[in-house]
């Protein structure tokens, strides 16, 4: 993994969903080796923010320094093919990202015993472990994780924390949206509540498509 040239810095970012501003005036920097946890109640815009950072949707305003090519995004869905085995699923992503080797990922998320099992025959937690192992084969420095520990049991959560720590130690950085405790006390926390988008009357931004109509 090549260490990131710079940090992932966000300036005056505003993000929208369904044409409505959701978060605004976001400004934070994610340095290599650091973990940042996004907190906010349901519907506060965590998923929207992560998708914007990953380059899947354009920001409403503001700047993101890190190019999408340095970012690996893990969403609510795991992107697994039900009829491929665990090994085939991982190998595919390794090839797509040009890293090739899946050994570290398999050991990291404790998937050795399941390598030949088709993804459709995994339990919810096993699927999730496979989805997280995918991050390890991307070889990218910034990880954006959306509720990564859903369905994981206590042991797997610890395993996950371990994987995150070694990623940080190798110069990576992670941004995690979650509601539960991840066993990462060293991580900083970013609360999204103060960044909730205000109505335009109160000084908030216009939505993407309605500025012409308001």
């Amino acid at each position, binding site marked *: 993994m090549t260490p990131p040239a710079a940090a992932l810095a966000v300036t005056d970012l505003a993000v929208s969903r369904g044409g409505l501003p959701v978060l605004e005036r976001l400004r934070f920097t994610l340095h290599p080796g650091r973990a940042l946890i996004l907190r906010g109640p349901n519907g506060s815009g965590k998923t929207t923010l992560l*998708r914007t950072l990953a380059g*899947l*949707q354009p920001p409403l305003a503001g700047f993101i320094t890190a190019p999408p090519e340095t970012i690996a*995004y893990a969403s609510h869905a795991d*992107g697994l093919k039900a009829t491929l085995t665990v090994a*085939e699923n991982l190998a595919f992503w390794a090839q797509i990202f*040009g890293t090739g080797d899946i050994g570290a990922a398999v050991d990291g998320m404790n998937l050795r015993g399941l390598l030949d099992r088709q993804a459709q025959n995994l339990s919810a937690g096993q699927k999730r472990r496979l989805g997280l192992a995918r991050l390890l084969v991307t070889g990218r420095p910034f990880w954006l994780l959306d509720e990564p520990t859903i369905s994981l049991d206590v042991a797997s959560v610890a395993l996950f924390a371990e994987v995150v720590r070694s990623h940080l130690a190798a110069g990576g950085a992670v941004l995690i949206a979650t509601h539960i405790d991840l066993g990462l006390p060293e991580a900083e926390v970013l609360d999204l509540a103060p960044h909730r988008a205000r109505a335009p009357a109160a000084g908030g931004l216009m939505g993407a498509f309605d500025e012409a109509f308001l």
Partner: protein
Amino acid sequence: MIALFLRDLRLAIRAGGGFGLGLGFFLIVVVLVPLGVGPEGRTLSLIAPGILWVAALLACLLSLDRIFALDHEDGSLDLLATAPIPLEGVVTMKALAHWVTTGLPLTLASPVLALLMNLPGPGYPWLMLSLALGTPALSVIGTFGAALTVGLKRGGLLLSLLVLPLYVPTLIFGAELVKRGAAGQAVATPFLLLAGITAGAAALLPFASAAALRVNLR
């Protein structure tokens, strides 16, 4: 990128014989038409070129919605969009995989089905040639339609509506090529036009498809 192509092929094979199924549909449409129209050989050989092409087109069409739908549902498409390969490449590979699993087997099987439709003897080579030339265009155009409708619930029929008008030129020239070939007439014009459509679609449409995909993902 090859990895994506190989994975799609593997998925097609795993999922209960991906190759056989497109073919199966082609076969069944060709069987149904005589069942509906009735058994007279002369009528059948009259309509054979047209019906064979329409059947091939429908067989292609039916497998279109799965080009992106499955990848979208399970989140793979988001991941592919952020992967270090251009979306144009993804789209091309998807179209190629679709052709290999649908258009290619259709082309190879078409003589057998032409038999059922009573196609006149000289038409056989032209039928295969026209399908070999035309089905890539069907896959590429279909991929574009699939990219437009990805993420829409019940996109399947909407997709058909969008794509079928786009298929019209390919269909007309393809069927015309077979008809003239079967009747022993000059085939150069429809041949060149068909080849031109395929080349043009393969060269340009991937950009449109990738753009549509990008819009649909955000």
